[in-house]
């Protein structure tokens, strides 16, 4: 069948294909943006005129990592200063050490303030997680010592709280006369600068709105993809952040992804998470239309729904006996964000349009409602291979996994939670037994449910080697193993971050494994994840990616 164009052969220490029929190769050949083949250098050379590039001779090549659940604000937030507890690398490749004390946070803010030229500009920061600072609470009084008259807003890691300084309180008119329950007060009865939930945070006015709108810029989209490249990812799924009916947001996606140097493919989900101008049938129609116009780098066809809140925020819907040690005044269970009675109709609108529904379900009541809805809809409108996916899937029970397998549903499991909040889940949210079976990759595997694992970046940092490490080891931040029986093998974890993730966004014909004819999307690693100590999986260096045959070296700006 014709002679292939001149092509490039990349010999490697090993090519891990994730194709069970041809699991390993010595080299991979790339013609244009596609994989010509994998095998030995000689086998590949026999295709014809070629060039051998030895740049990956010492590296291990895997399929590019596929993140099926993250958000474009993980690019936008880097407009603000990071003050989170854990080390985090920004999209420019600079490492920001975790702020592990209130003093660390203040020092970071002082430096950021000193670096700002304009005295009146508001200092914005993100990632504060007071759960790690038991005892003293960081409040306006602390911020004032380093920010002076400069208005300052620090968004908490949960996204549900913000702490502002006195200058911003003054500007927004927040004083002792405030009546909003969203304005927290200190022991002296005066507002202490902490703003709770949207009704409180909105009082910060422009500062808060500006922080949210930063996520819509072209710069945020570039940073989003740069971070992906640095972590070995070649596809990101923006799961429900973009308002696709807004031409500006859609056009920004089209603009950045049409630049040949843009270093990631992006699947942008349709979502009416934050309200919209249209009903589900219209959104389904729009999504189908966008799908017909999609490009290699900008994809459509999946829909995000949301049923409940978060477990660490005590707002996920969890069945009896509900929460283990909820905070005082807790209402007993979490919140529904969509009415369970509406789910079947919502799913039906998108299901009938041929789209794949991805529904946020943290608690097991939420996954039950979603599975019920899919079952009802399938009775009304049978459709094969829909791949409707339970997202987060954190407390999904074994019986639910069995139903998901029977219904053809997929799971995208939030494995990073084990590391970042596993200790809190064991000690406070759900207690030891249920914490041990959270994020149950082992059960998913045994039940025959296709599953992926995810970061939900910016909620936790993007990086599939770390996410795979969480699923393989189930080690918490305090170093304890949580639920050893749900651990999976490294090969299973590598499938979850590549072909299985591609499968649930229906891109597994094009990406997710290294096979002749697929897009040439690779993660290029410094070491071999199949021979490394599983506990060292997350420490494997990443050279960068190859995206559609184009080399995308990671940018790491520090030693």
């Amino acid at each position, binding site marked *: 069948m014709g002679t292939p164009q001149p092509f490039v052969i990349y010999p490697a220490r090993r090519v891990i294909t994730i194709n069970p029929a041809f699991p390993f190769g010595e080299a991979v050949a790339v013609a244009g943006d596609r994989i010509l083949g994998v095998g030995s250098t000689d086998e590949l050379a026999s295709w014809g005129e070629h060039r051998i590039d030895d740049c990956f001779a010492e590296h291990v090549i895997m399929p590019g990592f596929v993140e099926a659940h993250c958000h474009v604000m993980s690019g936008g937030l880097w407009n603000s200063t990071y003050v989170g507890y854990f080390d985090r690398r920004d999209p420019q490749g600079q490492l920001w050490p975790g702020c592990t004390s209130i003093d660390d946070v203040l020092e970071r803010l002082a430096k950021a303030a000193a670096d700002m030229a304009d005295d009146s500009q508001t200092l914005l920061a993100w990632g504060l997680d007071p759960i790690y600072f038991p005892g003293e609470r960081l409040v306006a009084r602390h911020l004032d010592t380093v920010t002076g008259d400069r208005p300052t807003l620090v968004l908490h890691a949960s996204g549900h709280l913000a702490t502002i300084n006195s200058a911003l309180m003054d500007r*927004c*008119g*927040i004083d002792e006369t*405030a*009546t*909003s*329950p*969203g*304005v927290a007060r200190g022991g002296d009865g005066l507002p202490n600068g902490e703003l709770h*939930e*949207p*009704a*409180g945070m*909105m*009082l910060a*006015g422009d500062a*808060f*709105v500006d922080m*949210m*709108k930063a996520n819509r810029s072209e710069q945020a989209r570039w940073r989003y993809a740069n971070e992906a490249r640095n972590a070995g990812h070649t596809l990101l799924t923006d799961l429900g952040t973009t*308002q696709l*009916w*807004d031409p500006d947001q859609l056009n920004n996606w089209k603009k950045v992804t049409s630049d040949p140097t843009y270093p990631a493919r992006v699947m942008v989900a349709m979502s*009416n998470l*934050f*309200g*919209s*101008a*249209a*009903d*589900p049938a219209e*959104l389904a129609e729009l999504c189908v239309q966008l799908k017909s116009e999609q490009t290699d780098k900008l994809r459509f066809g999946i829909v995000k729904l949301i049923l409940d809140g978060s477990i660490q925020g005590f707002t996920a*819907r969890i069945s009896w006996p509900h929460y283990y040690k909820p905070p005082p005044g807790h*209402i*007993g*269970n979490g*919140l*529904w*964000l*969509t*009415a*369970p*009675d*509406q789910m079947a109709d919502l799913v039906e609108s998108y299901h009938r349009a041929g789209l794949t529904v991805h529904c946020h379900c943290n608690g097991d*009541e939420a996954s039950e*409602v979603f599975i019920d809805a899919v079952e009802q809809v399938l009775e009304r409108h049978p459709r094969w291979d829909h791949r409707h996916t339970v997202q987060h899937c954190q407390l999904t029970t074994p019986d639910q996994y069995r139903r998901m397998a029977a219904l053809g549903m997929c799971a995208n499991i939030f494995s990073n939670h084990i590391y970042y909040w596993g200790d809190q889940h064991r000690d406070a949210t759900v207690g030891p037994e249920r914490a041990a079976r959270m994020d149950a990759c082992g059960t998913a595997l045994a039940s025959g449910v296709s599953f992926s694992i995810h970061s939900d970046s910016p909620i936790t940092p993007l990086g599939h080697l770390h996410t795979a490490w969480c699923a393989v080891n189930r080690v918490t931040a305090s170093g304890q193993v949580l639920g050893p029986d749900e651990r999976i093998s490294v090969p299973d974890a590598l499938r979850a971050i590549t072909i299985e993730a591609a499968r649930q966004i229906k891109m597994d014909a094009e990406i997710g494994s290294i096979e002749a004819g697929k897009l040439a999307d690779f993660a290029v690693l410094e070491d071999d994840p199949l021979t490394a100590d599983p506990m060292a999986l997350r420490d494997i260096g990443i050279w960068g990616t190859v995206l559609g045959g184009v080399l995308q070296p990671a940018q790491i700006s520090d030693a």
Partner: protein
Amino acid sequence: MSTQRLPVTVVGGYLGAGKTTLVNHVLRSSNERIAVIVNDFGEVSIDEDLIVAADSDKLTLANGCICCTLADGFAAALMQIRSAGTLPQRLLIEASGVADPTQIAAYGHTPGLGLDAVVVMADAEQVRRQANDRWVADTVRLQLAAADLLVVNKIDLLDDASKADDLCDWLAGLSPGATVVRASRAAVPIDVLLGPLPASDAVDTPERPALERAAASRSHVVENLFESQTVVLDAPIAMPIIESLLADLPDGVVRLKGLLQAVPPASTEDASKTEAADTTAYLIEAVGKRTSMTPHPTDATQPPPRWAISLIAHKGALPPNWLAEGLARRG
């Protein structure tokens, strides 16, 4: 110019209880210029004949009303409303069918706004089932408990009056802070929903000034379930009288609103002779078990507002002249 607060009415209740019908009813029946904030245009269908113009994030409605969504958050919706031209006289927030109205009501404490009432709708036929549903029992009970005014809607669908009485008693138990009113097709008299007097003198509309509107609400019978009483105040009134009135309102009172000049206790010996400078104008309100008394700045360049207290009660619940006699007795 005015620092009077924009009154906020929250409309909550589970899916299908009639929230949207109520919002359309208010838009159709009220003379106020209303800004409606909804969670999602997909969930809410404003009656088409009320819509003058539609774009993706805003509906322009008849009578100067507008409708925005929470797509970009409450702060953004408020900015949009404030930049849309003539300021509204009331903010109506329709909560989603699963929202906790208490959380939505927190927006009513934004500077410049003042929470007027949390109206929660219940579907007379469905609410018992919903309040015991496997998934939403706690959500529905939380919503009912948040009400100042609990509207038992579709009451006409119940076969007999005793069923309706049982239901309303049961709901009153779940919503101890609320006044329970009955309705069909969400047709609650507008003065019951929004208060018997205009919230302030600033809400006059050219078509129907405050005085005329107040006179209309003095019609004594507000449809056939309610009646109203109004006392016009020709002198300032002693603060303890007002406090005592608000503290002891009988259950039959659905709503009370008043605009008055109050005299602090020290100078109450002869209230009628007190100089105006010693008095403060207040807006007093009661809905459900919630009462409030807030200073009401008046504009010296304008004619003084009409000082009066009005209430709406369930028909037959109060003796005639209860309000006038109650004030006289306390005086």
